[in-house]
């Protein structure tokens, strides 16, 4: 008998309206969104500014209530405090208590999540080392660089060993070396069996790590699927390379002292898909409006 493993995140008909002003004019930030994130995958949430990504993340985290529809995290309604036991969250441009040291900050959040005593101390040491901040752990967070803030943010998100890790623009404003390091950490999370939900504007990074992506615009889901599938959709298979082939090609080129410039076209493909989908959606919206 196969036991039912709940999806990591299950959004069903999710809609969120915000009231603007006293006259109650409503802004629909998320419109009938349905998608499922499987356990153990890295899932990318893409969309232009104002597409509803942050709102969706906040609903998953229980920080906002949906106007209609449902959101469940490992089978538990996101509105319940219990749903957040299994969730770690790194906000966009994170801000933490500047007067605490890195170690104190992670310890604080660990205690909040119920860790205690020796196991807490060990876990704090482990995550801080894992994000590469062991040497800076006793400095105040207020003295950290942007990249260090991202790392300590990742540490606090992981201290309680959550099953689902939500990363909101994890590499925004970080230099390429730092961004690469964070990307590597994300891959390691997957290797450890974690489910990762990422939002990002840096599509090249998204397609490098994500198993599947969803594209949102004006609160609506435009596309959802594996990066490779979306890339090859409507094109002949000879025109594109999937991610595995891409990696093999990169290895082959590297063995011959060549660069990966030949793969540049693949990165552009996801950009193109993104732009095409969004543009198409807006044109259809304009037609409906007229």
């Amino acid at each position, binding site marked *: 008998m196969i036991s039912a493993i709940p999806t990591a995140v299950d959004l069903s008909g999710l809609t969120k309206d*915000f009231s603007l002003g006293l006259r109650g004019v409503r802004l629909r930030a998320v419109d009938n969104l349905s998608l499922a994130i499987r356990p153990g995958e890295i899932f990318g949430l893409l969309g232009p500014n104002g597409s509803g990504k942050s709102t969706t993340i*906040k609903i998953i*985290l*229980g*920080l*906002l209530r949906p106007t209609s529809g449902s959101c469940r995290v490992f*089978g*538990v309604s996101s509105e319940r*405090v*219990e749903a*957040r*036991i299994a*969730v770690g*969250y790194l*906000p966009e441009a*994170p*801000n*933490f*208590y500047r*007067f*605490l040291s890195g170690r104190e900050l992670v310890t*604080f*959040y660990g*205690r*909040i*999540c*119920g860790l205690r005593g020796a196991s807490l101390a060990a876990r704090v040491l482990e995550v801080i080392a894992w994000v590469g901040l062991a040497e800076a752990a006793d400095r105040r967070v207020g003295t950290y660089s942007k990249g260090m803030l991202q790392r300590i*943010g990742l540490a*606090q998100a992981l201290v*309680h060993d959550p099953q689902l890790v939500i990363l909101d623009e994890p590499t925004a404003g970080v230099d390429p070396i730092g961004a690469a390091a964070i990307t590597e950490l994300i891959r390691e999370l997957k290797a450890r069996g974690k489910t990762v939900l990422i939002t990002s504007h840096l599509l090249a990074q998204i397609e490098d790590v994500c198993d599947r992506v969803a594209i949102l615009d004006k609160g609506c889901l435009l596309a959802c699927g594996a990066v490779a599938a979306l890339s090859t959709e409507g094109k002949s298979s000879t025109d594109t390379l999937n991610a595995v082939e891409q990696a093999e090609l990169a290895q082959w080129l590297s063995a011959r002292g060549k660069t990966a410039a030949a793969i540049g076209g693949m990165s552009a493909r996801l950009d193109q898909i993104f732009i095409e989908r969004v543009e198409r959606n807006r044109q259809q919206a304009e037609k409906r409006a007229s």
Partner: protein
Amino acid sequence: MNTVPFSLRRVGLIAGVTLHEALRQKLLHALVLIAAGLVLGVRALRDFNFGVSELKFIADFGDGAIAGFGAALTIALTAQLFFSEIEHRTALTLLAKPVWRTEFLLGKFLGVAAVAFTFCGLLTATLVGVLEQRQLELQVDQPDAWVVSHAVNFGMLWVAAYLHALKLALLAAGTLLAASFAQTQIFAVMAGGAGFVICHLQGLAQAAYERNGASLMTALATLIHWIFPDFQRFALPTDGGWTWIGLAQVTAYSGVYVGVALALAVRSFREREV
């Protein structure tokens, strides 16, 4: 499914970090220094030379400094510590953990209340020091004018400090209630300040409804009297009249209003989109 029951431990953790943050606020340092400076500086008023009555004046001056600066500190700190979490989005990170919103608000309140109690204690200790020294000087300088009945009742000063602290805790709860639905920090501060004045003057409303017959204004005055706690209750009773039962009653009075204000704040904050 794992459950996450309400945890006083988490409340304590949040209160601790709130207190830690509060102690780093320059506003707190400034107000404590000014208040302490006033308490110490009141000795300069000895030039008025009204003999042993000077002790009463020093005590009242110090008491006024604790009340006034304590209120300013409590209102400003409560609003500041709440809104800094919202504006810097540290509340986002915290509430994304398995934390009840009730725990968050209670933690904020307890952190501020701890500052208020510490402030009252610290300044009262300063005042007691000033009075003790002056009392000794007067006993030596004016032995003929000195009678035991003129001696300062230091126990009363500590009772007054406790009553001030209770009042400030109530003020913190009220400001937190305003902050829970306010969109800006300045609104919360103004609401706290207005509440402070109304709670002190609501005795006038009570007098109005006791003197007048049935009317719309009487009803309004009655409503104001009921909605806003009476801060006159936290004044020391007439000379030498405090009792443990009286203190317990005032403590319960403050506790009930604090409880109701915090419950309303939690209800409001639950609806707030962070």
